């Protein structure tokens, strides 16, 4: 029976520079929700996400992410993006050296704990990029390998350090 509750599973706040953040603890068949806010990097970088599996939790790096999203751009016409990737794109370029440049978002995760099902996610993000553009993405993905996954891993393409942000994983009951 749904209770309408959010139960915090894990949270990480950037207190020292690090190029990745991993949230784990998905161990039931419930829906999970990830939030993040005020996330930025030392120099311009885009935020990406992967799922994790195994112990210790290891990011899945194969070309098995199929995603589709629409851009919510305050400065330009709509942009639709889709296809197979090895990670899921969550933002444009972010850097804390640009005033206000950061991103926040909410992701829902489905079927992550079930080893016989694909895992799915939907996300809504908003960001201010280093080109001073106010934008966001609304989209979703599924990871085309039926396997049990236990978390999510945030990164960028150039191992640039996160300098701010709080990432939290909740179980939705």
């Amino acid at each position, binding site marked *: 029976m749904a209770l309408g509750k959010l139960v915090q599973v894990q949270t990480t706040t950037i207190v020292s520079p690090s190029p990745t953040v991993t949230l784990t603890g998905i161990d039931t068949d419930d829906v999970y929700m990830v939030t993040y806010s*005020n996330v930025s990097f030392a120099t311009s970088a885009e935020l990406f996400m992967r799922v994790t599996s195994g112990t210790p939790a290891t990011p899945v790096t194969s070309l098995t992410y199929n995603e589709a999203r629409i851009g919510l751009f305050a400065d330009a016409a709509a942009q639709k993006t889709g296809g197979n990737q090895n990670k899921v794109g969550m933002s444009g370029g972010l850097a804390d050296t640009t*005033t206000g440049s950061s991103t926040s978002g909410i992701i829902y995760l489905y079927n992550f704990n079930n080893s016989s099902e694909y895992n799915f996610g939907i996300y809504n993000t908003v960001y201010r990029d280093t080109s001073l553009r106010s934008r966001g993405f609304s989209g979703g993905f599924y990871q085309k390998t039926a396997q049990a996954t236990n978390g999510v891993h945030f990164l960028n393409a150039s191992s640039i350090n996160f300098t701010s942000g709080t990432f939290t994983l909740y179980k939705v009951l």
Partner: protein
Amino acid sequence: MSALRFINETTGTSTSSFQVTDIFSSDFDIYKLVVDRLDLGTATYARIKFINSAGSLITGNYDTCFYDLTSYALYAQNASTNQADLAIGYAAGTTTAWGGGFVIYVFNPYQSSTYTFVENESSTNISANFVGGKGIGILKNQTSVTGIEFHLAGSGIYDNIRLRTYGLSVV
């Protein structure tokens, strides 16, 4: 206890400027705002402004993009920068048939070192046709925001409106 913490419920009647103050604080970084029981004379765009910690309306530096997800036409993108307020989608409804509502997430409003980010979704019906909305917005001010105002495009009046505010706790 749920990590989704109820903060406040406020209702408004016969108002062109529905203001709710002192809902954002240092207690949370992320807020969920749920608007329902919408009753207004003429369907139009709902708009918001934030209220700073001095109690003043913030009347500039808003960027927005939202889509009208209409059942009767191609989706329309509404994008603009440097606005006096933040448009968040269509509102409609009558005394006998409330419009749908809005769910709005607000990120880091209270922190004076960050911009305030918004994600919003909406649903309503206009002339017996469904209209949804999905959008984002940014207040490009590094200021501490503690409240919000809902108003309507033109000189519209909310005959009825209800706002419930929740915070997402992190421990």
